[in-house]
């Protein structure tokens, strides 16, 4: 659905994107995660042909991103926290304005979404709160049943109630559509995303399916008989190593039960108890972000 190959974007002397590649499979919900300034929004704007990449290539729905035009945009829904809609039009006026541009616009679906998101149809867009605007953007992105839905930081600044309404509507309409979502609000993506790509300072550190990611990351706690010490020869797949009294904790990025036990037996003395817990996406992101900042590869 989306293929990105060696994508670069320079702003002056600054490399916002540093030549990364990734694929978003059809039907997937791909989460592009990363800290602020990692390059998520720049990537999405390049995919939408809002900005032109300096180098490299991206195809969206089989079309070169530089050539994306009305034909492709009829099949792409786009929601962004940085989206300027006409402030002086009311909600219903703007929906009415957009309708003729989309051949597949479903008016009953539009009414249903508008109702479920509780959008005040006679209120001017300029008078909507931030949360309402995000819901408005979603209401404008779904009625034509897009093949691809691109969400750029959709949860930023939303209160929990609005987030729930937003997610509920998103999941309700998701169906067979492919979703690319960028966010640093990892709690919201967990359970939604099927694939994840981790961007850091314009570089994609990894991308894989959530199932694989959840399978290989474990938060490990080793309890010893005596005072614990840092192992002498640290394996590269262990991140975020901490020692506190008789407890050694770390994140194993290549988890398998047998390998972990045998490695601990070699590196740690007087092991009393080993506990390896699956990690939520948020914890994985934090561990990776720290490691990236410290120059450690995962």
């Amino acid at each position, binding site marked *: 659905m989306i293929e990105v190959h060696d994508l670069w974007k320079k702003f002056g002397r600054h490399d916002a994107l540093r030549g990364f590649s990734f694929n978003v499979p059809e039907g997937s919900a791909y989460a592009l995660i990363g800290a602020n300034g990692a390059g998520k929004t720049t990537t999405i*704007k390049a995919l939408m042909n809002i900005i032109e990449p300096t180098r490299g290539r991206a195809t969206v729905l089989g079309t070169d991103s530089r050539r994306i*035009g009305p034909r492709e945009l009829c099949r792409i829904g786009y929601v962004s926290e940085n989206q300027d809609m006409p402030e002086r*039009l009311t909600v219903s006026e703007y929906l009415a304005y957009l309708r*003729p*541009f989309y051949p597949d616009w479903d008016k009953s679906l539009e009414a249903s979404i508008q109702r479920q998101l509780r959008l005040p149809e006679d209120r001017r867009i300029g008078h909507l709160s931030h949360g309402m605007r995000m819901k408005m953007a979603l209401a404008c992105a779904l009625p034509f049943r897009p093949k691809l839905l691109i969400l750029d930081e959709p949860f930023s600044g939303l209160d929990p109630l609005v987030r729930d309404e937003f997610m509920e509507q998103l999941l309700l309409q998701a169906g067979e559509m492919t979703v690319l979502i960028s966010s640093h609000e990892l709690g919201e993506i967990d359970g939604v995303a099927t694939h994840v790509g981790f961007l850091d300072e314009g570089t994609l550190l990894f991308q894989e399916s959530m199932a694989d990611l959840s399978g290989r990351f474990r938060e490990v706690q080793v309890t010893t008989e005596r005072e614990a010490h840092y192992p002498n020869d640290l394996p590269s797949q262990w991140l975020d190593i901490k020692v506190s009294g008789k407890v050694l904790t770390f994140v194993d990025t290549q988890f398998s039960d047998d390998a972990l036990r045998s490695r601990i037996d070699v590196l740690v003395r007087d092991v009393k108890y080993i506990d390896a817990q699956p990690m939520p996406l948020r914890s994985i992101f934090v561990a990776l972000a720290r490691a990236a900042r410290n120059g450690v590869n995962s």
Partner: protein
Amino acid sequence: MIWHIFKKDLKIMWPFALLVAAVHWIVPLLATIGFTGGRGKVQNILGVLVLAGPLASGLLVAAAVQLDAVPGVRQDWLVRPIRRRDLMLAKILFAALAVQLPILAANLTALLISGVPLRLSMVSAVEHSIMQMLVINISFIALASLTRNFLEFLTGGVALGVFAAVADLLGRDTLSVEPIYQSGPGWVLYLSAYIVMAAGALLVLSLQYFSRRTVASGIVSTGVAVGFFLAWSMPWNFVFAIQRSVSSDPASSRVIAVNFAPDAGKFQRPAGGLTPEDAVAVLRRGQGEVTVPIYLPVRVSGLPPDSAIQMDHAAVRIMDEGRVYRLEQQPWNTRHEGAGNESNTVYPSIAVPEALFERIKGRRTRVEVDYWLTLAELSSSHMFPAIGGEAQIPNAGRCLTNVNEQQTNVGIRCTAFGPRAVCFHSFLENTATGQRNPERFACRMYGSVAGFVRNPVIPDYLLPDGVVLPFRDPAGLAHFPVDGSALREARAVLQLYQAQDHFTRTLVIPDVRLEDWEAAAPKS
């Protein structure tokens, strides 16, 4: 989808559009009830409104364009299946229907109320609107497409305004000679500048809407500004060559010759008062430049029946001991009334800097003068009472005569619409004796392109301040055949001329002493 986008823009902008339309309606309505001819506060208000109109139009166009701004990455239209061509055409449609159509309607209404015939009113209002769309509104759209908000638009506008003012200042000729843009062939500058503006605006629009290249468009805009400056600074030879290529009767000037006429004697300074050349010399002195006027007699021969010659420009070269001094000559004209070919002698003045004059006045020097001239032929002659006269004159418009408050002169003021004469000759005539008061001959711009962009309802006068025909000298020095007592029986005569040919001549005087051609003292 062009109409659909236009409707959206109008839904948002209609209060602003209504306000701008109101500004444009006030001017022609005031003009219609005769305020344009007045003076004082009403005239000042009208002046402000005339300036406010284009500014308001510009802001309205910018606001409409910026509803879907081109620069930036946050605009919603960028992610919608909206054809960029449709978006651009929708903005042009907005400028045409929401901005220009009310102006056209206002102008048309005012012209009809003024008594201008329907066809002429339609032609005048429509041609003005088309030119304004092609030159002004398209430029506004282009400038707006480079900007995201009013502040950026105004900043861009002010920057261009400053550039234009500096260019104008640099392009102006010196005090004594009319700048090209005020001369007969000046329309060539206007037309060239309009073409540069329109072409540049279309290029910027294409770059912006089809490629969203704001930096490249900015460079093009700078190029357009430079092109505008170059168009505005075109040399005389080039401007006149274009003027010449559109002469209506290119062969008619062939028999006209311009020669030095020493046998005509010295220029006789008139009794009392300053000559126009003296006035120029005084002004120059005020600027720290002291000049001596030299009057070389020039014979213009071969003048066809009922014709006139207008000097558009002259370049004077005085050559002395291997050095060439380039000077200017005051504009002059000469006429021939009646049948047969005739020769007239004129005394054009050359302002020679005093220091130069003192150095070379007694030496034998060579003088060469290149003349750029226009031959005009009488097309019609009209007479009306000197006091309270009124007439609708083809190619001049509605003309009125009135006496000024000081009771010193009769003014003729013509409000012209549509095609108009380029030169006129006017005088007061005693109906009983046929004697005439001092006559007035002048020419305006030969092409009317400049007028297209001006509001057609603000009358395009024959001369901006009307024609002034004196009949009484408050100092009592001059006496006129038609004086105050004879004014009731006198008539004002207005003769209109059309340009036939534009041509050049070079006058060569191989051996002349400048001191021989200072003005002679007035005869007692």
